[in-house]
């Protein structure tokens, strides 16, 4: 089974990369973008553990390593 993990900066945490991208877009004639936040996207391949077990396992992985919960939020999507 496969899963997708999205790690994003928490609201209120400054994102210097996002800011620079935001201010660069109008230079290319791309107008109307109001905010950009840069995050991480991970693709994970798992043994066939069943949805519930996979969710628990990945939640643990995110809390312990994949995300720093002081500054980041995470979201797990499991696709069977």
């Amino acid at each position, binding site marked *: 089974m496969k899963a997708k993990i999205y790690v994003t900066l928490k609201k209120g*945490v400054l994102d*210097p990369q996002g800011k620079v991208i935001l201010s660069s877009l109008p230079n290319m004639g791309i107008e109307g973008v109001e905010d950009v936040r840069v995050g991480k996207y991970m693709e994970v391949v798992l043994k066939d553990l069943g949805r519930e077990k996979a969710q628990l396992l990945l939640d643990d992985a995110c809390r312990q390593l994949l995300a720093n919960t002081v500054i980041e939020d995470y979201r797990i999507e499991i696709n069977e």
Partner: protein
Amino acid sequence: MKTAILTFPGSTCDHDASFALKDVMGLDAEFVWHNQSSLEGFDAVVIFGGASYGDYLRPGAIAKLSPVMAAVRRFADGGGPVIGVCNGFQILLESGVLPGAMIVNESLRFVCEDASVKVEADRTPFTRVIAPGKVLRIPVAHRQGNYFADPATLAALEERRQVVFRYCDAKGNVTAASNPNGSVGNIAGICNEAGNVLGMMPHPERRVERELGGTDGKLLFDSMIVWLKEKGK
């Protein structure tokens, strides 16, 4: 009096630390590899800079899982003096030994320059002989040194006098212009609640001889020696 210098794959300032501690300070110091699980026989632990594990995922994120970090946690819980500089600070934050986290510098650039820092607290073993208010000139060299903590954590840090160093101008004024990375509250270094663990971005091991640009960094190691002697080490 024996100091452990931790070495991770990707550490680069461990030999600078060894030079500062052994050659300049005349201390007994030994490298301790990341996969060792004991710090038995050591009186102080120093974790210096570099890019442990290539800074993969986040600086310090992989290093915190090393066996030696479990030993560092026990050593710190027992009141032993621990200093983490630059990547060492990042590792202590990722390990949860110190509160908060590092994000990329506001400028998005690697900053490599001399910084002025004001000493805010002499309660740590590494600031024992430095008068609060003193301005030290110590270089910084990092890309992820933008210290972040949520407002509640920050308030607690201030209240418990855990902010040890703040970026300032040459006269000691804490200004936005003197902040090299965007750190909240101009924070350059903090300690744990007990005061025995210090994390800081500037590199004291690079300012231990006049020939190297100054001796302000040496004051931290002088402090450590005085502190250890007071404890009968």
